[in-house]
Every structure is written in structure tokens, then in C-alpha cells.
């Protein structure tokens, strides 16, 4: 759990405490200062953070690193092989976030070796999860994330597996049945999107979790954010931007756009 003492960092702490309390592991509380002279400031930040965490977690390991916040969080994650990094993200103006980004959270998401939760918006218990699976990655998003899923949830959890079809026909004469179909129809038609949703449902059933498949048609980012708002989900789960080789340069960073636009916690799975 990374904190800089700001209000959005406190959101991250509260969310991190909730998860850590459920898992039963000792979490690490990290703050980063730009120079050694700021160590008293770091101690004060950690003391405030420990007070905030106290009701939920009894044991916390506190750490101070010196350097650039994003770089030090990533370095710490690499050195200690954490299962999860929790950071906050300010609800800033989109234009500012877009052009100055930027933000520590965005850089951590881009380079961290493990999944990252960006805690923002309303923080509560995780009962309603929106899992956004593009199907473009191998292994699939859910198979990479399924081992950690039970630790995040408690009691009855509703999971919606969302696939957004942003395709349109590339020219006249193309059969457009699948371009209008809902999840059930795509599963019935054995379309690639239907098979993906079916695989995800089967995987969740093995974990004794039930899930509802859903397909939306439109621009990927817009539809994910609209579904998140309309369904009032507690957590969005998305895949990270592919960070290697030609894909990094050529493919659009949709994960970043979702993080910037979302008004609730986002878990980015690598």
C-alpha cells in the first residue's frame, strides 16, 4: 500500500486495509520521499496511515524509500515480489490527467510486475465486480486473475463478465447478426465472443462463483465506463496495456483511459 499523505492516498489505505484484513497477510505500508531531509515528514505520514489502518489490521510493515514516487513503488514491488500493489488516484480534471500524466498511479500501472489496484471514488465492501475481458490476450484475463479472486471477495459476490464488441462491418454485404447479438445469442451462435464468455463462466464455476455474461456494443472505453456507472459495481477488473515490443507502440492504452475515466476502484491485472 503506497501513501503520500494526500486524501486520495487515504482512500487507497482504506481499500488496502479491507483486502489485507481479509487475506490475513502482513501488508507493507510504503511512502516515498524525494530526499533524506524529508524523513520526518515521511514518519508523520506513516504514523497517520498506521492510525487509519489500526481498526482493520493489527500488524503492518512500514517502509520509507527515497527517490521518485512511481519509480520507487515499482522498484519495491519488483524487489519483494508482492501479490498486489494498492495506490490512490486523485479525481483530477481529465484534461490535466491526460496531458500531464502523469500521475504516480498511471506509471505504477504501466510498469509494476504484479496486479495493481487504483483506489478511487466510493470505497466499500466488494460485493459486485465488473470483469472486463477483451479475449485478445493469452492466457485470458480471468485465468491470470482467478487465483487472487477469492481473496478479494467475501460472502455472496456478484460477478459480471463484460465483453465489449466495438466492431462494425468493414463494408456492405457482411453478415451483421453478431454485431447486434447479446451475450446469450453469441454463446448460442458459438461466436468467438460467446466462447470467451462461456470459458470465463466455467472457470468461475470451478471457483464456486457464479457469473453473469454481458455484451455491449460501442466504443470499448465508453461502454465499460457506462456499464460501471449503470451497474454500480464495487470494483472494475481490467487487463493491463501490453507493455512489450511493437504492441506497446502501436496499440492504444485502453487501460489508462479506463483508469482516468472510472469513478470507482479499478484492478489492473497483468
Amino acid at each position, binding site marked *: 500500500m503506497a501513501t503520500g499523505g494526500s486524501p486520495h492516498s487515504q482512500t487507497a489505505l482504506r481499500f488496502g486495509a479491507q483486502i489485507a484484513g481479509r487475506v490475513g497477510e502482513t501488508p507493507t505500508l510504503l511512502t516515498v520521499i524525494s530526499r533524506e531531509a524529508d524523513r520526518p515528514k515521511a514518519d508523520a505520514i506513516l504514523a497517520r496511515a498506521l492510525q487509519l489502518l489500526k481498526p482493520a489490521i493489527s500488524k503492518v510493515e512500514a517502509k520509507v524509500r527515497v527517490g521518485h514516487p512511481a519509480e520507487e513503488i515499482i522498484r519495491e514491488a519488483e524487489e519483494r515480489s508482492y501479490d498486489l500493489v494498492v495506490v490512490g488516484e486523485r479525481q483530477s480534471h481529465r484534461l490535466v490527467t491526460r496531458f500531464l500524466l502523469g500521475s504516480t498511479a498511471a506509471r505504477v500501472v504501466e510498469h509494476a510486475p504484479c496486479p495493481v489496484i487504483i483506489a478511487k471514488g466510493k470505497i466499500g465492501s466488494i460485493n459486485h465486480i465488473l470483469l472486463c475481458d477483451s479475449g*485478445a490476450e493469452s492466457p485470458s484475463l480471468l485465468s491470470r486473475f482467478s487465483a487472487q479472486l477469492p481473496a478479494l471477495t467475501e460472502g455472496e459476490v456478484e460477478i459480471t463478465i463484460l465483453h465489449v464488441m466495438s466492431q*462494425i*462491418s*468493414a463494408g*456492405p*454485404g*457482411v453478415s451483421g447478426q453478431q*454485431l447486434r447479438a447479446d451475450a446469450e445469442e453469441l454463446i448460442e451462435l458459438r461466436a468467438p465472443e460467446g466462447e470467451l464468455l462461456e470459458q470465463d463462466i466455467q472457470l468461475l464455476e470451478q471457483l464456486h462463483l457464479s457469473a453473469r455474461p454481458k455484451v455491449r456494443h460501442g466504443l470499448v472505453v465508453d461502454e465499460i465506463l457506462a456499464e460501471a456507472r449503470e451497474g454500480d459495481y464495487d470494483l472494475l477488473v481490467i487487463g493491463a496495456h501490453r507493455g512489450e515490443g511493437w504492441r506497446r507502440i502501436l*496499440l*492504444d492504452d485502453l487501460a489508462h483511459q479506463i483508469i482516468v475515466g472510472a469513478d470507482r476502484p479499478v484492478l489492473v491485472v497483468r
Partner: protein
Amino acid sequence: MTDSPELEPIASASGNSELSWPTQGPISWTAALRIARERLRLDKVVLFIISLFLFILAIILMREGARGLVPLVRDQFSVTNAANSLGFGWLFAYMIMSGSPVAAAALTFFDAGVVDELGAFAMITGSRLGASFIVLFIGFIYVLRGRDRATNLSMGLLPLSVTGTTYLVGLAVGTVLLQTGALDGVQLRSGMLLNSAMSLVFDPIVSLFASFLPGWSLFIIGLGIIMLSFNLFDRCLPQMTVKESQVGRVSRLVYRTWVMFVLGAAITLISMSVSVSLSILVPLSNRGFIRRENVIPYIMGANITTFIDTLLASVLLSNPAAFTVVLVQMVSVTLVSSVILITFYRRYERAMLDFVAWVTTTNLHLALFMITIFIVPIVLILM
């Protein structure tokens, strides 16, 4: 090179066929394939040379014939100002179902003094607007045959909407560039040697036509030949059968806007036609689908390099002002597209997609749209 679309997936003659070469003789499989490829390439090269020869011949014939059309264009069609030229180019492209020949015609009209600099510029803009209609027209025929509106019209409506918005703003930017003469100094000339060679080859042919045909008819013959040359040029392009290949999988991804912008510009630079460039997208995806996110920047890129044949025509005319007109067209569309991509692309993207969705929602909306795109150029001509 033409705007006449071939939107059905193109089947490769050699791609999937089981080749069975004679077993006797020293020829190996790899050598046989290499020979087959070389033969295929030679065919394309010959076809390319023929289409280029016809293109040059057509431009010269149109230039010679354009002078004879002054009374017809000025008096009968009343093309006397930029608005008239815009509407004239627009309707002309509808009529011949292609934009590039109209753009070339605009240059020959300018060279012959039928229209002024601004008129030629507006007529070229009109030609692109008219050319964008062609893919929509094909889709409209599918709709009339009972296929659904959204699937069959989206890829016709999107290029038309993107071209309409960027070119009409580009028209204003271009007018300023032309009036200030900001790009007058940038020139590309064909050179004395090339001009002499062209005169040597093409003048006798043009003289032959002119000896027994009225002057104005040379323009019509040139127009026919330029359409034939574009048609032949389309056949020079490599054919693709990808279906379930790696390319098919790659087409499912969402690319950065500038990647699709450059790709659209590069493919159209080779194909010289937006509709051919768009039709290439069909066989590139295994189900004939393309991501919404990828389409608009691709069209924007394609809309710039589609002028490459018109630029070539201006060089062949050896008219520096004609070259400036085409260059201004390319620069103004590039400027408008770049501003959109850099500043408010997401809002623009949503607006275009929402508009396409609105048009395809009901038959009434579609009818209103179709009537509008026919009435507007007619009104422009009458202005």
C-alpha cells in the same frame, strides 16, 4: 486508383490453391513457385505501365478538350463561382461514380481557364465529397434488397461524414492558404526532358484524335480513358486472402489513432483511392468486422494521400498554380485532421458514430440524409 469500389473479399488466385507441378524435369517446387511469382509480378508491372500511359494520355486529352467546354460549363451549368464549382464537382463525381477523374478534370478546367484557382480547389473538394458517396450507394443497394441498415451502411456513412466535416473545414483553411499564397513557393516540376519525351510520345496521338473529332469531345474521350486507367491500376494491386491468418487476429486489436492515421495514408498512397483502401479492410479481418476505434483515423489518413494521383496530374499539366491547388488541398486536410486528432478526437469520434447511428435508426432518417446529400450540391450549383 478509381473510387469504384470492390467491397467483396477478394479471393487470391494463388493463395490457397493446391499447386501440382509436373514431377518430370529438373524444376523444383521452390523454383517453380519463384517463377510463378515472377510471372505474376511481370504481369502487374506491364499493367501498371499501361495504366500510367493511359493516365498521361487522358490528362493531355482532357487538357486539350477542356477549352471547348467553356460555354457548356459557364453558361449551361452556370459554374461561375466557388460554390458552383463545389456543387458541380460533387454532382459530377456522383454521376461517374468516381472522384479522381473529376479532380483531374478540375485541374484541366483550371488550366484551360474554365474555372479560377478557388473554383478548381472547390471542385476538387466536391469531387471527394461525391466520391465518398459511392461506398454508401453500394450499401444502400444491399438495404433495398432487404439487408439491415446499420451493418450495410455504417462503412459508407462514416467516410462520408468524416470527409464532409474535414473537407468543408479544409475548404475554409485552403481558401486562406490560396489567397495568401503561402504555398506558392513549393513546386514540383516535371522537367524539360520529361516534357519533351511526353510530347514526342503523346502529341501525335492527341493530334490524330483532334484531326477528326470536335475539340470538346477530346475531354470526354480523356475522361473515359482516365476511368479505364484507374480501373486497370486497381488490378495492379496485390490481392489478399487472409481469413484466419495472423493478420486476421491482428485486425481485432485497438490501435493508437496515429497508427491508423499513418496506415490509412500509406495504404491509400499505394492504392490511390479511399474506397479501394477501405475495401482492403474487408479481407484483412476474418469476419469482415473492423473496430470502430480504428476506422475514423484510417479514413482521415486516406483522405490526404488520395490526392496523390491529382498531384501527379498537376505535374503532368506543367502548371505551377494547378500544383499549388492540389498541394493546398492536401495541406489543409492534413491540418484539419491533425487538429481534430490532437485536440478533441474522442468527442469528434463519438459525434461521427452517433450521427451514423442516427441515420441508420429509421428509414425516415436515412431518407432525409439521402435527400440532403442530393439537394445540397444542386443548391450549390444554383447559388
